[in-house]
């Protein structure tokens, strides 16, 4: 197991624990947020963005490269029609099911076996996108 893989595995554990602790692993909590009954997920997103923004924007000024080597890669995406069209389709699915990729995958760890049907459908959706629109 490479060092990078160990770090990603540990990072995944913390990420998944945070998703479960923050309630996002439960579609019901996501849907109550989207129905504007409980705005807590805005707090969750804000609390995740602040430390991440500091790490991504400030740390590379003081460190030439990541601890394990390599380089700090900026995450840039070019705005296109597909960015927005995809976000609209994702938004409909999100509002319908209360699932997004990370929240659904972490939900497996709650023992929430019906979510496997949703995850299977996500794979199918990703496949159809790549096959016919990629």
């Amino acid at each position, binding site marked *: 197991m490479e060092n990078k*893989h160990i*770090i990603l*595995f540990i*990072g*995944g*554990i913390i*990420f998944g*624990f*945070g998703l*479960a*602790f*923050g309630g*996002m692993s*439960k579609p019901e909590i996501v849907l109550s947020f989207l129905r504007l009954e*409980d705005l807590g997920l805005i*707090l*969750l*997103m804000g*609390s*995740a963005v602040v*430390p*991440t*923004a500091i790490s991504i924007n400030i740390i590379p000024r003081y460190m030439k490269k*990541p601890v*394990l080597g390599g380089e*700090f*890669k900026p*995450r*840039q*995406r070019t*705005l296109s029609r597909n960015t*927005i069209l995809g*976000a609209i389709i*994702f938004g*409909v*699915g999100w*509002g*319908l*099911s209360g*699932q*997004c*990729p*990370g*929240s659904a*995958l*972490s*939900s497996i*760890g*709650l023992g*929430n076996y*019906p979510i496997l*049907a949703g995850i*299977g*459908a*996500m794979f*199918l959706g*990703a496949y159809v*996108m*790549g*096959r016919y629109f990629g």
Partner: protein
Amino acid sequence: MFPIGVYSYIIGGLLIGLAVSFVYILTGTHATQSTFFSTTLSYFSKLPYFQRKSLLDQRVWRLYFISGVILGALLYTLTISPDGFWITSVSIWRLVLGGFLVGFGVRLSSGCTSGHGISGISSLSSTSLYATITFLVVGIITANILGILGVI
């Protein structure tokens, strides 16, 4: 506004931010979720779209990352979760139809709540900001229409 309090949300969010920061500082990699679907499909589909080098280069670490995500939620369930193992009451047809649209949409948009919403916005990417606003607004409209119609 916050019927179950704010602490679980804030602590959960900070843990997610800590996880993404930890991975970025050590490896320079953005720990995001939705590309996992495409990289994992590269093991099963010979289509050129899924056999792109950029996907093949990421597919192993993404398997480790997502395994960690599932294990992390399991650790929460087995330790401090107030309700232990838990099963959703959202109908299967909503999970399946919604899941299909989520899988299709996040790959067309090249990002999800994690990639656009956390890593993208944190990278001060205007593309990710527009994408996040779009799926938030559409998600809110969709969930409210279904609520008003009384769809179960």
